[in-house]
């Protein structure tokens, strides 16, 4: 049977081209793989190969012809015994296979990271009357890992100095003794490589916890975190999940300079496929880390070196977790909403105390997780207070606060009595000098000033 040879598309964007030169003539026998013609695209001259065997029955387009549309028949291939006459009888016609461009008629509300009208989870994090004990964030994180490792032997910890050194910040202290070197794996200093190995181990059925000595070093590994861990479930049509936790200190410590002092919250919160957690208190650090280790998705768990030594009340429970996407209201108030997370909560709560002395009652919300975000709790609060200030330590451009402001504008515009103010770190690399570093970070005084500004006081 005669087959048409069609003008090929030779690049992702080619719509037409020039048939520069025929390398075969009518009557030639051709093999699959043989070069038939040279075709000029918008970018280059390409050789065009035969796919089928046969005899060139007819060349339909003369060489030198430009503007030949993709899928136009350019030649006819016949089998032995067929004549060109048979070919002429079969009128070649161009096939229109225009790819359908689907309409984007899916409502934006189904975007996983987008504002959604949902029910707020207002249940208490633990039952009333639960016994509490004082614990540092460091101890809480360690307990979370130890408990999850006891409960699931596929959970293991890997990273630099997590084992014999007992953790650069002592988060993993004692874990090597309890779980042994198979499950507490010291790595060479090779973030890109071990992050990739951990992702592969997660694909292979394990539940890795990867400790980055700081999240600054995770930039070496960010391709594996985003391109491999976050996107593979989607790219595989739901087959290949990546249950992994990347954790470690994030943000500014003290006097460690620009390369060791960056808050990555907004970076990771932008990526569909990741979950992003940034706890403030010890109880949240414990409950959220246990939840992260159990989550079947890649979770970025952002800790803070300064917070490691701070103590909080933690419930004494055999097993407690905190769900993602549930903000915590630390302080109720009617005059202004302060939204923060992580170490930013320190300034938010301090400011609220001082503002109360001046008669301004601030409602302070700790987002706790940045993907998913509990928009509902923020919106409900703003509808009550009509004013909002956001507080975070990261850079100001494209910050979490910017995103919260946009959401409030879209969902609660009519409730606002003042523009939302976003407090963030200054738009500079972190300086080393003590006075400049202090200036670069967000402060309690700035929070107080911003709250007064939105309250017109």
């Amino acid at each position, binding site marked *: 049977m005669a087959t048409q040879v069609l003008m090929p*598309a030779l690049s*992702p964007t080619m719509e037409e081209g020039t048939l520069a030169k025929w390398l075969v003539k009518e009557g030639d026998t051709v093999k699959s*793989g043989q070069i038939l013609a040279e075709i000029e695209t918008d970018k280059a001259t390409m*050789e065009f190969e035969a796919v089928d065997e046969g005899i060139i029955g007819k060349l339909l387009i003369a060489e030198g012809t430009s503007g030949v549309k993709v899928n136009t028949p350019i030649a006819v291939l016949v089998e032995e015994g067929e004549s060109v006459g048979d070919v002429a009888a079969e009128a070649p016609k161009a096939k229109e296979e225009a790819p359908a461009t689907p309409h984007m008629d899916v409502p934006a509300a189904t975007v996983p990271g987008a504002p959604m009208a949902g029910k707020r989870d207002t249940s208490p994090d633990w039952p009333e009357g639960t016994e509490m004990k004082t614990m540092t964030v460091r101890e809480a994180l360690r307990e979370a890992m130890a408990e999850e490792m006891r409960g699931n032997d596929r959970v293991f910890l890997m990273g630099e100095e997590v084992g014999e050194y007992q953790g650069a910040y002592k988060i993993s202290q004692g874990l090597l003794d309890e779980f042994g070197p198979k499950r507490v794996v010291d790595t*060479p200093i090779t973030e*890109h*490589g071990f992050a990739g190995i951990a*992702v592969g181990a997660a694909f292979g*059925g394990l539940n890795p916890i990867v400790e980055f000595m700081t999240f600054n070093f995770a930039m070496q590994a960010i391709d594996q975190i985003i391109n491999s861990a976050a996107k593979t479930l989607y790219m595989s049509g739901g*087959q290949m999940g990546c249950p992994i936790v990347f954790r470690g200190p994030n943000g500014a410590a003290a006097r460690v300079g620009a390369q060791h002092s960056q808050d990555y919250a907004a970076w990771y919160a932008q990526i569909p496929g990741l979950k992003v957690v940034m706890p403030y208190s010890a109880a949240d650090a414990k409950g959220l880390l246990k939840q992260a280790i159990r989550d079947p998705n890649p979770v970025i768990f952002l800790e803070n070196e300064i917070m490691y030594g701070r103590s909080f009340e933690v419930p004494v429970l055999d097993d407690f977790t905190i769900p993602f996407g549930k903000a915590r209201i630390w302080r109720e108030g009617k005059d202004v909403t302060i939204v923060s997370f992580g170490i930013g909560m320190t300034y938010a709560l301090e400011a609220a105390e001082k503002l109360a002395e001046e008669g301004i009652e601030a409602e302070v919300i700790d987002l706790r997780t940045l993907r998913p975000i509990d928009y509902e709790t923020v919106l409900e609060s703003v509808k009550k207070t009509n004013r909002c200030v956001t507080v975070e330590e990261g850079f100001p451009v494209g910050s979490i606060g910017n995103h919260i402001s946009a959401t409030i504008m879209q969902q609660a515009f009519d409730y606002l009595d003042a523009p939302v103010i976003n407090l963030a770190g200054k738009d500079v690399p972190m300086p080393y000098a003590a006075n400049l570093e202090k200036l670069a970070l967000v402060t309690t005084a700035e929070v107080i000033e911003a709250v007064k500004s939105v309250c017109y006081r």
Partner: protein
Amino acid sequence: MAIRKPAEISNVSKDELLGYYRDMLLIRRFEEKAGQLYGMGLIGGFCHLYIGQEAVVVGLEAAAKEGDKRVTSYRDHGHMLACGMTANGVMAELTGRTGGYSKGKGGSMHMFSKEKHFYGGHGIVGAQVPIGAGLSFADKYLGNDNVTFAYFGDGAANQGQVYETYNMAQLWNLPVVFVIENNQYAMGTSVKRSTKSPSLWERGAAYGIKGEKVDGMDVLAVKAAGEKAVAACRAGEGPYILEMDTYRYRGHSMSDPAKYRSRDEVEKMRSEKDAIEHVRDLLLTGGHATDEDLKAIDKDIKAVVNESAEFAKESPEPDLSELWTDIYA
């Protein structure tokens, strides 16, 4: 490119040779059809064909057992067909249809099959190498004797994460075979223009990893080397490197005019070193098959490939609601 040594075929059965012939021919015909569908605009974006390199995956699959894993780059169609994924499912993914392995959401570069232990399909050059080591880390952790084949090209062989992985794979004795498919060109840059190292596999020596260079156009040589590497891994001797000397006949991707090498160079490879012609010769000269037998196989393969193309055209595009699925487990 080494001159092919006379194959030791005394211990190769007729069925084995016919199997290699069939498997390699399937890949070649499939890729030719994919190129054709690309030309018709039915396949979009990037499409990297495996034509010329068929002996590498077919030979190594012959050395693998059930449970072994494989992971590769974006030039992945051959690997998928060789490990038993269906032509229909792969072709329908190329056309972005719901019958594809990733429901049309991955495309040429991103396909996976848990059932066949195929872990992708990765588009960032070199990223699949630590992932492959990680898969073998999981198997070692779980205490089974599975081996992972981590395939990458001569281009990826210059990526830093490959060497980070070598270091840890040997340190932790991981059962992973690093397969360098040296097809001589990283896109348009020949190996000679990208490194002064005389060979790629020998770089493993810096980490204490054993390895060897293999004639990647000879499926029997590939299988023999694969068996040796796999045996070392299963015996707990750690990773192994196989540098496959091979050649891709087509451009880097469909939109590559391939001006960096001469037509004569490609023609010489095709006529003197072709892996499929090699097995065909062995079958005919060894009296294992007649011309007619092989024509019958060609016909079968053509039918499989044509059916996959039809399936890939008929399978519907994913439902619009699929935009929002599979983001979180």
